[in-house]
C-alpha cells in the first residue's frame, strides 16, 4: 500500500507533524495483554468489588430491577451495537424504528405529546429542561424544588451559572412536598419554570396538579423530573396533571446499575414547545415508492445545522440505552409494567411498616410514596449504617447533607427484595438499635 501511495516508509505519512513534536519512543503504557490475560485482569478487579455480598436498600436515582434475558440477548446484536447515529436512513431503519417506538412509549408513560430520542441521563435532562423553559419563556428566573435529587440540582447549577440564570430553591413541608407558601412567595412574572421531582428525592409523590395550576397562573412552565420512571406505570401521568415538560432517568428500564453509567435521559413535552426540545427526534415519512419509513427530523434545532444557535450542543446521546429500554418496556407490556409498579409500591409499604415497628424508628414525611421512603432513626444514621454494614446490610442512603436530616436515610425497595430480605433488614435493625 505504501508503494501505491508513493512513499518508502510509514514515518513519511506523518511528515506534516514537525519532527521535534514527534514522539521518539513508545508511550509508557502497560505491555499488550492477550484476550485471556485481559479477561483475567478485569475479573480480578471486578472481584475486588464486594458490593454484591451485601443486601442493599440503596436507590436515590439508580434502581436495582430485574432485567429479562431477552433484553441482554437482543440488544447485544452487532446490528444494534455497532452502527453510528442513523444519518443514512435507508440503511438504518432498525435503529430509527426502535427510536420511534421509544418516543411513543415515553409519550404514553408521561402523558405528553412529543418525546426526543434520549439525553445523557436524568441529571443533564433536568438541566436541559430548565434551559428549554428559559428559552421558551425568555425569562431568567428558575425555581427548583429542594426535594429534587441533589446531583440533578448540582448539574443545573453547573449549567445555569454560566448563563446568568437566577436559580431559587424551594423548601419542602412536613409531608415532604414542595411547600405551597414557599412557591407562592417565589413565583413572579419573571419566572420561567418550576422544576420539581415526583416521586421526589425523599420518595414522596408531589401534588403536580396544584403545582401546575400555581405556575401556569403566573405564565411559567412546570417541568417534572422523574428518577424512578417505573412510577409512571402506576401514578397519574404528569402530562395529564399539567406538566409542560417531563424529563428523567430511564435506568430502571432494563439498564444494569453499572456504577452509574451509561444511563438514559429522556424528555417529553407539549407539542407547542417542540422547536425548543433538545436532542435528536425521529419522525415518520414515506420513501419514493410511498412506503413508510423513519428519519431524523426537525434538525434545524440541532448543532450540526444551527451551530451556536442550536437548542442544545448534544450530538451523540444514549441510543443503545434507549434500545434496551424499548425492549424492556415492550417485554413487560401494558399489564406487566403496571403490575411491577404495583408490586414495588406494595413491597415498599410493607418494608416501611416493618422497619417502623422498631422503637424510635419512624417515617420522616407523611406524604405518600412509591418505592422509596425516608426513615428517621433515634441516632445518627452514620453509626447505624456502620453496624448494619457489619451485618451485611446496606440500609439506605444517609441524608446528612440535608439540614435537619442527620438521623435520616432514604430506603429503597424493589421487586428484587423478597419478604424474607425485608424481614431480615427489620430484624437486624432491631438488633442494632437494641
Amino acid at each position: 500500500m505504501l508503494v501505491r501511495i508513493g512513499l518508502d516508509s510509514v514515518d513519511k505519512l506523518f511528515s506534516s507533524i514537525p519532527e521535534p513534536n514527534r514522539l521518539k519512543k513508545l508511550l509508557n503504557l502497560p505491555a499488550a495483554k492477550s484476550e485471556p490475560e485481559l479477561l483475567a485482569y478485569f475479573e480480578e478487579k471486578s472481584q475486588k468489588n464486594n458490593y454484591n455480598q451485601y443486601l442493599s436498600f440503596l436507590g436515590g436515582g439508580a434502581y436495582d430491577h430485574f432485567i429479562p434475558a431477552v433484553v441482554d440477548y437482543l440488544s447485544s446484536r452487532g446490528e444494534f451495537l455497532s452502527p453510528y447515529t442513523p444519518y443514512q436512513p435507508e440503511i438504518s431503519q432498525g435503529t430509527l424504528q426502535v427510536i420511534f417506538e421509544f418516543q411513543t412509549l415515553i409519550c404514553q408513560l408521561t402523558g405528553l405529546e412529543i418525546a426526543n430520542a434520549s439525553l445523557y441521563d436524568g441529571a443533564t435532562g433536568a438541566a436541559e429542561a430548565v434551559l428549554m423553559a428559559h428559552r421558551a419563556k425568555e425569562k431568567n428566573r428558575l425555581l427548583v424544588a429542594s426535594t429534587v435529587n441533589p446531583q440533578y440540582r448540582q448539574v443545573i447549577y453547573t449549567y445555569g451559572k454560566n448563563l446568568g440564570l437566577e436559580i431559587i430553591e424551594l423548601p419542602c413541608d412536613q409531608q415532604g412536598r414542595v411547600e405551597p407558601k414557599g412557591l407562592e412567595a417565589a413565583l413572579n412574572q419573571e419566572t420561567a419554570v418550576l422544576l420539581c421531582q415526583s416521586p421526589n428525592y425523599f420518595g414522596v409523590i408531589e401534588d403536580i396538579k396544584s403545582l401546575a395550576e400555581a405556575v401556569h397562573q403566573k405564565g411559567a412552565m412546570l417541568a417534572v423530573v422523574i428518577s424512578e420512571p417505573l412510577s409512571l406505570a402506576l401514578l397519574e401521568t404528569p402530562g395529564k396533571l399539567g406538566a409542560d415538560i417531563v424529563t428523567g432517568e430511564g435506568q430502571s428500564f432494563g439498564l444494569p446499575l453499572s456504577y452509574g453509567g451509561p444511563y438514559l435521559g429522556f424528555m417529553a413535552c407539549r407539542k407547542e414547545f417542540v422547536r425548543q426540545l433538545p436532542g435528536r427526534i425521529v419522525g415518520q415519512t414515506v420513501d419514493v415508492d410511498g412506503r413508510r419509513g423513519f428519519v431524523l427530523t426537525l434538525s434545524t434545532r440541532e448543532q450540526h445545522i444551527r451551530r451556536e444557535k442550536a437548542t442544545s450542543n448534544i450530538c451523540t446521546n444514549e441510543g443503545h440505552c434507549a434500545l434496551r429500554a424499548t425492549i424492556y418496556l415492550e417485554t413487560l407490556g401494558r399489564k406487566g409494567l403496571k403490575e411491577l409498579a404495583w408490586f414495588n409500591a406494595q413491597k415498599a409499604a410493607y418494608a416501611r411498616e416493618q422497619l417502623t415497628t422498631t422503637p424510635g424508628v419512624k417515617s420522616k414525611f407523611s406524604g405518600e410514596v412509591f418505592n422509596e421512603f425516608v426513615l428517621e432513626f433515634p441516632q445518627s444514621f452514620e453509626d447505624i449504617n456502620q453496624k448494619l454494614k457489619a451485618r451485611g446490610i446496606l440500609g439506605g442512603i444517609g441524608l446528612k447533607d440535608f439540614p435537619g436530616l442527620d438521623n435520616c436515610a432514604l430506603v429503597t425497595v424493589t421487586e428484587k427484595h423478597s419478604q424474607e430480605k425485608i424481614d431480615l433488614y427489620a430484624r437486624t435493625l432491631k438488633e442494632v438499635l437494641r
Partner: protein
Amino acid sequence: MTKVSREPLIFEISSAGKTAFKLPALDVPEKKDLLAGVPLRTDIENFPEVSEPEIARHFTRLSQTNYCVDIGIYPLGSCTMKYNPKINEKIASLPGLTQTHPLAPEELVQGNLELMKMLEKLLLEITGLEAITLQPAAGAHGELTGMMLIRAYHQAQGNPRKYVLIPDSAHGTNPSSAHICGYTVKEIKSNERGTVSVEDLTRLMDEDVAALMLTNPNTLGVFESDICQIADIVHSRGGFLYMDGANLNALAGITRPGDLKVDVMHLNLHKTFSTPHGGGGPGAGPVAVKKILEPFLPVPVIEEKNGVYHLNYNRPQSIGRVRSFYGQFLVAVKALAYILNLGPAGLKEMAETAVLNSNYLRKNLEGLYELKYDTPTLHECVFSDKYQKDYGVTNLDISKRLLDYGLHPPTMSFPLIVHGALMIEPTETESRRDLDLFIEAMKAIAREAKENPELLRTAPHITYVRRLDEVLAARNPVLRWEK
C-alpha cells in the same frame, strides 16, 4: 425493487392480554387501598401487549435492516467508526461491574475505582496532559465541560472573558458548546492549505478571548503544523488552547497534545478507543487538562493513597457536577480494555495503519473526485462532488448510490468550507480488500455519474426503503405512533 417483508410497529402487532414476562407472585400482604390519596392511572393506554417470540422476531428483523461496522466499512469522516472488539463487551458485562450501585460505600467498589483511575492514568500518558475527569457523557459534553473549566479559571481571575475563537472548518458542536457556556463565537478563516490562518488568529486574539477551540488534525484530516505558534499567540493574550480530540486516532502514540502546548482537550472513547457507538450512544467524553485547570475539574475526583481509592468531593474551586455519578463507567471499562489489549506498540500501529489506510484511499480516488485542498492528510481526507456536479450529481446522490453497493457513505454535512463534501475516514480496522471494495465502488459511481446520472439521482434502488422524504417529515411531523 426487492421484496422485503415490512416490519410493523410493535403497537400494530399488539393484542390484548398477551405478555412476554411473568412476575413472581407478590409475597407481602397486599394493601388494596395503597396510594388511595394520590391520583393513579387505571391503564397505560395502548401500551404494547406481545409475546416473547414476537419481541424476539420484531427486534431481530429490525436489526437486519441496519448497516453496521460488523457488516462492513463505515467511512464516516471524523466519526472514527472502527471495529469494536467483542472481548470488551464480555468484560463490560462482568457481574462484579454491572451490579454495583453508584452510591455504594467506597470500600465495596475499590475494583471500579481502580479501573477508572487506571484509565485516567493511561489517557494522561497518551495525551501528555496532567489531570483528567471521566465524567462527561459524550464528546459534545466534554467540549462543554472543557469550556466550563476555562470559564471558571478566567472567572477566578476576575473576568470570564467574552469570546471563543473557532475555525470555520469546525464541527457544529464546537460553536454550540461555547455558546451554552455563555460565550460568543468568532470564526477564524482557514487559509489556502485548509488550516488556521495565523494572520486571522493574530488579528482576532485579544484579552476578551477566553480560548481557541481547535480540532487537530482538523476536519480536513490536515495536521495543524503551526499549532505551537498558534498556542503561543493564544497564550500571549492569556487565552487557552482547547483541542477537540475527535481525531485523536491519527495521533495516538505519534505525538501528544500536551507536548503541542494544548491546555485542555476532550477524548471520544467511542471513537479512538473503540467502544461501540450503539446507533447514537452511549459515548464518553473524558476531559484532560494542564495542571493549571485541575482545581476546576468536576466533582468528585478519584484519588489513590497506599492502594486505597477515594472519591474526593471537597474541591472548593470545582465547576460542580456535569452529570450524575462518575460518568459512563462501562464505556470507560471497554476503553481501558482496548488500550490494555493494544499496548504501546499496538496503539502506535493503530494510528499508523489508520493514516496509511486513509492515504491509500486518497491516492486511489484522486482525479476521480475533486480534492479541494491538496495538503497532505492524516487519518481522513475530504473530496467533493465538484466534478460530478457537471452531470447534475451531488454528494448526496453519490452517497445514496454507495448504499446500492452495500457500503456506508462518507460524512457529508461538514466541513462547511468544502461544498458537497465527501469526508472519508476508513480507520485502521479495514483490510486492503475492504478498502479496495470501497475504491471500486467509488470508481464505478464516478463512471455512472457520467454515463447514467439518473441512476444516481434516484438511488438507492435495492435498500429496505428507498430515498425518504425528509421535507415531508419536517413539515408534517409525525413523531409517535397513535391509535
